[in-house]
């Protein structure tokens, strides 16, 4: 509503053009304008929409918590990097004080450049490519694990999983999707795994597959032929579904499917499409703490806005998107101004202990990266993603190996 009126006003103002090359409307506002850039269409559409739910409930919850007024300016970058760049420019032009988003590393990189150029703080909700916080940016902040962190945490959790279930798998076949994210994870795993000598297993084969592939029968045949104890998988949603089905068709039932950190197996679509077949898949991912206060608040707000939905399917997406906006609001409260430099400085000083995600407080290092974000071992139990490790946050015990396991 507000944005449309604002657009009309801007059009008129633009015609009378001030000789102001930046045209940034710096309103002396009591409201913080948050530009939310997400992929609500295109191949990342369903994830973007999931994140959007987190954004939509943020103003209400944050108003209660911090007494801060937020105005969301939503933009859809259509899963396209170029569009991400122009949408970011647009949002800044229309007066966004801070940008939040975008879920995808490629888009994050493009938006980061725009934000840095225009001096507008950008808080990344979800994006794993390490380079984004290695470019020396002063206005870009990320409250999410880098691929390296995800791998380290993921492998550690795998070790915990084996200890908790007293199993000692010796071999694993590593399958990964061959895109930006999958490659970064594969690199991470190959670097970190050899040094984790307390982990009992070795990777006997590494199979990369095309994320757009619809037929993964060859890949699964190859994996099955390795006779590995379990499947280590870095995937996305659609291919995870295809792989699972193919495994059934080819009658391959290893000890389990474990992801050291990737989307897919905890998403709603995975359950809806696979039904019982989705049981027991494990994803070690940054997750929200089901027992924290903040989570309770967000869950309540989520239930109210989405009565037919369940937060647990959107945990990661909603949690981190909400937190990104929380960071912006918290900084606004401390800075008491919408001036971008002041906001950026305030964000740099962030120290939030009451939060939704697992791990230590939200504090940015000098690269704009939060360290110490925790991961959880999330297993599909009773058709719900359930936290089984670490024990403090667990609501059930892990199951490994899976009941149908046949040693071939």
């Amino acid at each position, binding site marked *: 509503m507000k944005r449309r009126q604002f657009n009309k006003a801007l059009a008129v103002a633009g015609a009378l053009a001030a000789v102001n090359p*930046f045209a940034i409307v710096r309103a002396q506002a009591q409201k913080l304008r948050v530009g939310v850039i997400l992929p609500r269409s295109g191949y990342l559409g369903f994830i973007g929409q999931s994140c959007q739910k987190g954004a939509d409930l943020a103003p209400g919850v944050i108003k209660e918590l911090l007494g801060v007024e937020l105005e969301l300016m939503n933009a859809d970058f259509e899963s396209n990097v170029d569009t991400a*760049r122009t949408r970011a420019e647009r949002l800044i*032009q229309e007066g966004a004080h801070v940008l939040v988003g975008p879920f995808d590393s*490629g888009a994050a990189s493009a938006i980061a*450049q725009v934000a840095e150029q225009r001096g507008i703080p950008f808080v990344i909700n979800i994006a794993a490519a390490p380079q984004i916080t290695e*470019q*020396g940016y002063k206005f870009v902040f990320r409250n999410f694990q880098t691929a390296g962190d995800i791998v380290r945490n993921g492998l550690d959790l795998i070790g915990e999983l084996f200890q908790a279930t007293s199993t000692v798998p010796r071999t694993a076949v590593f399958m990964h999707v061959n895109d930006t994210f999958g*490659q970064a994870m594969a690199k991470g795993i190959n670097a970190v795994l050899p040094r984790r000598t307390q982990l009992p297993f070795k990777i006997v084969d590494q199979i990369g597959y095309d994320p757009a592939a619809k037929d993964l029968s060859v890949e699964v045949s190859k994996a099955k032929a390795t006779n590995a104890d379990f499947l280590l998988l870095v995937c996305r949603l659609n291919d995870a579904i295809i792989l699972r089905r193919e495994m059934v068709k080819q009658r391959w039932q290893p000890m389990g499917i474990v992801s050291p950190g990737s989307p897919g197996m905890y998403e709603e679509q995975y359950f809806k499409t696979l039904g019982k077949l989705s049981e027991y898949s494990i994803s070690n991912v940054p997750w929200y703490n089901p027992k924290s206060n903040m989570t309770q608040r967000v869950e309540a707000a989520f239930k109210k806005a989405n009565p037919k939905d369940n937060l647990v399917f959107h945990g990661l997406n909603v949690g981190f998107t909400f937190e990104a906006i929380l960071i912006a609001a918290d900084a606004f409260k401390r800075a008491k101004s919408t001036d971008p430099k002041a906001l950026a400085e305030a964000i740099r000083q962030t120290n939030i202990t009451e939060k939704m995600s697992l791990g230590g407080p939200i504090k940015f290092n000098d690269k704009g990266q939060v360290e110490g974000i925790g991961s959880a071992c999330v297993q599909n139990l009773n058709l719900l993603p359930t936290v089984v490790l670490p024990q403090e946050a667990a609501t059930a015990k892990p199951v490994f190996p899976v009941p149908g396991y046949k040693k071939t």
Partner: protein
Amino acid sequence: MNRNRALTPIYLLTGLAAILVALPFFVGNYALSVATLILYFAYTGQAWNVMMGFAGQLSLGHALYVGVGAYAAGALFFYYGIGPWAGLWLAIALCVALGLVIGFLAFRFGISGVYFALLTIAFAEFTRIGFDHFGWTGGPGGMFLRVAQRDTWDLANFRGPPLMYYYAMLFLTAGAFALCAWLLRSRAGYYWQAIREDEEAARALGINAFRWKLLAVAISAAMTAVAGVFFAFYYNNLFPEQIFHISRSIEIILGPVIGGVGTLFGPLLGAAVLTLLSDGISDALNALGLDIPGVKQVFYGLVLLCVVMFLPHGIWPPIARRLRL
């Protein structure tokens, strides 16, 4: 009467140039980034036009040259800190070589029309998947170029504010326009037109069609390589999936086809119309509250359909006729 006709295009051109040069003083950064995008597509469209409009060869894999040019210059910068001006030459050399290979193979084996188009698609796709597995340039994870600063004009490293990129692109587009105008009126231009109209007749007249077609391919590839270098230093991240994708190749040809294949103003007009249309439709739909994903592209496709059906030679020729050019 004749004198006026010869002068009107000059007036129009100067007027247009003046507007484009003065543009940054009247609009904000967002409009500037849109304008830069329009010029980029106008430039690449013009480059593609040399091959299609002049030599009649339909290339549907032009993203190949953008990608190779971008990665060449990008890799030099990433690994050796070599600036874009030197990287430019490697980019052009590689792309010209590539273009010549494709052209040679195609023309020597008598491949034309749809088959040639498919050949170009095949090369682009092959390269895309190849780069996806080429670790040295980052594979699917992409290549991220370091951006030192954005405030002052550093032409040596091609780093600076959006204003610099805008003027650079404007300069390139103007240069391409001038080059094509000159080519059209040169001997090469006449030979190309002859070949395009009827290759056998041209050959019968003694024109070495093979050599002239290769020249068109080489020039087109070289020009597109420069666009690739610009792309690398403007966007600073290169992903094979995006830069070599067939949708990019289609984007490149949309401008000239809508504007008018083989004409000088076609690519620029087409690029402007398409970009502004795309933005305009987005805004209109937002205003109407129709935020369903896909609606914008459906409208876009419908407009495209209408133009293709009712203005088969593009938007420019009827306008040119009106302006009595």
